């Protein structure tokens, strides 16, 4: 079974802090994703990566950055945390199969982040 592990289930930080959320997958997947989940808004894509050191902006990248130095690890960075970034953050991965697309995404359990 694919395992996507997020480093923390719950995290509390202060406004203005630099926050790191870590995600590791064990299935050698090329694609990795960061979403935030808010009630009624579903899952919104922040950033995704389809290869090491590659990244692309999703629908709501403002205030976030990412890092992918190794294939199995994808980090989300809140440069200067603000209260409106309080949310549930989900990481996901999927394989790159030729032809492109059509592969299920496998999700981690999420990190509930509170910014005070």
């Amino acid at each position, binding site marked *: 079974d694919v395992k996507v592990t997020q480093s923390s289930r719950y995290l509390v930080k202060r406004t203005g802090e630099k926050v790191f959320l870590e995600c590791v997958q064990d299935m050698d997947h090329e694609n990795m994703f960061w979403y935030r989940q808010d009630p009624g808004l579903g*899952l919104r894509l922040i950033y995704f990566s389809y290869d090491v050191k590659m990244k692309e902006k999703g629908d709501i990248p403002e205030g976030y950055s990412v890092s992918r130095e190794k294939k199995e690890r994808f980090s989300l960075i809140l440069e200067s945390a603000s209260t409106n970034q309080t949310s549930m953050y989900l990481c996901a991965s999927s394989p790159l199969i030729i032809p492109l697309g059509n592969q*299920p995404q496998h999700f981690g359990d999420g990190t509930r982040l509170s910014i005070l």
Partner: protein
Amino acid sequence: QQPVQSPQAVILREGEDAVINCSSSKALYSVHWYRQKHGEAPVFLMILLKGGEQKGHDKISASFNEKKQQSSLYLTASQLSYSGTYFCGTEPFKAAGNKLTFGGGTRVLVKP
């Protein structure tokens, strides 16, 4: 563009049926369906690729209309284990990276 899911919530008795819709203003390449139980990760249910396609997974099935702008998820003879939030995720075109845009979700509660 985010797909529109309806209804936002539904309450069922065990054994009853329900339909969840996922609509887009433009033709899609594919639709994915996921279910998320409270406090858990979303779990993949199925992918639909072709116009007119229908797929089943236990007593949960889905269809993709001919124009590929709407998908429906059918919960048949619902069980308590079907409770959770259902999301559709759409691919607008065949894109690198398998990027999905998710709908707002439909909360399903199945009561005894």
